């Protein structure tokens, strides 16, 4: 009996050692791709090299239409490169533990590249680092996870929220050249996105533009119910609001009628786009003379730049020059450039007409159960 147990233990140890050796051998150091001269797959974009790879897209939280469109956009971008032989997706469902174990699982499965939406921020860094150290090309995007490129991961692809703030500020200056009263709404307290957007706005706007909100922004948690409550309080408190700035436009659709109920015109709005918001503007602009609308693209295409980087690094292609996604201006109801306000009443309210992904593909993405 004792001998049998020791034989079993020996076999187990041997197999574990074999797995360990195989695990070590299966990967080349992730930096090797950057040393080799870039290759290029014919007929594919520059970032698509010739080495065949597998790629995984990981979401910390995938449960809203914006994420579904973003995920579909990532998959769409991957299809542009035939060198990617397999694409897989995992949704952390807002559970940090699951998001971490997803990364570990894909590392163990042996994927060559990962793009990671690290919703949990720095909590994701150890898992990201260990995947990178195991030889996976790891590209976190949009949410900062701390760490350094080349040490903890391959490359971080941020979103330039400061740029969004500058775009809003410039537009506000154009419609209100002599200053005005602004109300800025963002997500949870302390979120860096809101801080960066404010930095961008204040770099353009002088003291004649007065922020009515609690500094640095009114906290809404991006929750439509809380947004409505906060907006109600601000409307009651401030008889004059010239512009509302919000980094999640569609969540305002339920809240804006509060102005109408108070017998006031909906003010100008600088925000990010969404089909529901565009349609709301079309339905209400006639009755609300001060309701002007300016949007920046809501940033679904941020993932495309991350995919480009990950694929380039893993397949030996040429990475793009940009390392941060600059959301372009999308709609302007005053000048009509780059686009007049867009509304597709026949399509769901929660698709994003600014995204590159085709409308029918977006509808398919948000309809996917």
């Amino acid at each position, binding site marked *: 009996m004792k001998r049998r147990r020791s034989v079993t233990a020996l076999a187990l140890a041997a197999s574990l050692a074999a797995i360990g050796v195989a695990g070590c051998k299966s990967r080349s150091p992730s930096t090797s791709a950057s040393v080799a001269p870039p290759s290029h797959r014919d007929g594919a974009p520059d970032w698509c090299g010739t080495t065949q790879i597998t790629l995984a897209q990981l979401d910390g939280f995938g449960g809203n239409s914006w994420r579904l469109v973003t995920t579909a956009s990532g998959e769409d971008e991957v299809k542009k490169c035939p060198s990617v032989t397999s694409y897989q997706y995992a949704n952390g469902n807002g559970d940090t533990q699951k998001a971490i174990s997803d990364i570990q699982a894909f590392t163990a499965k042996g994927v060559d590249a990962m793009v990671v939406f690290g919703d949990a921020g720095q909590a994701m860094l150890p898992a990201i680092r260990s995947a990178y150290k195991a030889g996976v090309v790891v590209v976190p995007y949009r949410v900062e996870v701390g760490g350094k490129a080349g040490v903890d991961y391959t490359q971080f692809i941020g979103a330039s929220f400061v740029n969004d703030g500058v775009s809003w500020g410039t537009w506000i200056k154009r419609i209100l050249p002599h200053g005005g009263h602004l109300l800025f709404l963002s997500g949870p307290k302390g979120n860096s996105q809101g801080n960066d957007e404010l930095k961008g706005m204040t770099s353009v706007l002088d003291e004649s533009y007065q922020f009515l909100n609690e500094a640095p922004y009114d906290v809404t948690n991006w929750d439509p*119910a809380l947004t409505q*409550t906060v907006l109600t*309080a601000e409307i009651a408190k401030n008889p004059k609001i010239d512009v509302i700035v919000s980094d999640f436009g569609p969540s305002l659709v339920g809240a804006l009628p509060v102005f109408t109920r108070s017998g006031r015109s909906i003010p100008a709005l600088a925000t990010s786009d969404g089909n529901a918001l565009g349609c709301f503007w079309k339905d209400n602009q006639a009755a609300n003379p001060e309701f002007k609308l300016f949007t920046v693209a809501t940033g679904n295409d941020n993932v495309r730049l991350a995919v480009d980087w990950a694929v380039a690094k893993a397949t030996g292609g040429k990475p793009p020059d940009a390392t941060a996604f600059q959301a372009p201006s999308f709609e302007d109801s005053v000048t009509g450039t780059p686009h007049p306000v867009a509304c597709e009443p026949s399509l769901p*309210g929660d698709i994003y007409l600014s995204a590159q992904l085709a409308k029918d593909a977006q509808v398919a993405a948000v309809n996917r159960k």
Partner: protein
Amino acid sequence: MVIDATTPHTTTAATRRSGSRLRLARGSVAIATATIALFGLGAAVAPSSVSHSAIIGMVPFAAVLAIAGLGQLLVVQQGGIDVSVAGGISLAVVIVTHEPDGDSARLAPAIAMAIGFAIAAGLVNGLLVTRLRLSAIIATLGMNSLLYGAVFAVSGGTPRSTTRLLARIAGDTTWGIPNAALFAVAALAVVAVLTKKTVAGRRFEAIGASPAAARAVGLRVRTHRTLAFVWAQLLYCLAGILLAGITHQPTAFQGDSLLLPSVAVVVLAGTSLLGGRGFPVATAIAAVFLRELQQFVLALGVDTSVQTLVQAIALAVGVALYSIDWSAVRQRWFGPGATHRQGDAS
């Protein structure tokens, strides 16, 4: 006899029972007084918090909380806490937005489907608690996960925009009163009349006060307790449908932020967490109190952390009013005579 048994943990001493009744009745008065005082304080310190537009904006959310609170009240009266309020509301929100997908004509079947889910969830909750004798918190915690599973199955976690019809039903006003408030008043009337004015309602409260005594006199304890969970889910369903209409672009997790407040309004209204006598009207008033408190701290323009602290302190004071034995505190600080003098005065 049955009616007399509606105070929690009925004791043999008649004096103790009458003292307890007085304390609970005082609870209803306390929350009403606190609410009036809050409006008074708002008018003096932050007038915008009591302006017409602030109140019109606050009332629909208070109505939703009141309805969810009434559901929670029924479960609390049976000595439980219903954690599945979050999942129940979120599922209703998801069904009535995702199924019609913007088409008002498909709203009615979606509402019927939401009601079907609510009844099923309530029945399972009730059976888990009464037949399998699970603690209500554990049973409803599991049900909450199941309901969120249904949320994902129905919608993939993404509700749609509200249909125009639902937005009008829940978000518009009638004679200047937000429609959601009318729904809340109707729900309140149904709960108050059923529990206070019908034989079944009196039995329901008696069972909550003492299941053992109720069983001894031949009341159908299991049926009443199971129905408490079913009624609760139906009320959460109504709250979810209204919330979907009010917010226009809800999330799939809209019920989460109502879990704690739904218990808070029940406690603030003076209902004992041990079960027994319930206070539907006071629960609705407590919902107005909590939502107006939120408007008040927002109107003050204080930091978010202070807003959270003020609400937490209000809750702590409310709970302390009912759960601390104040006569013992008075005895300890002012000597045995203090209680007697207090008793004389009252």
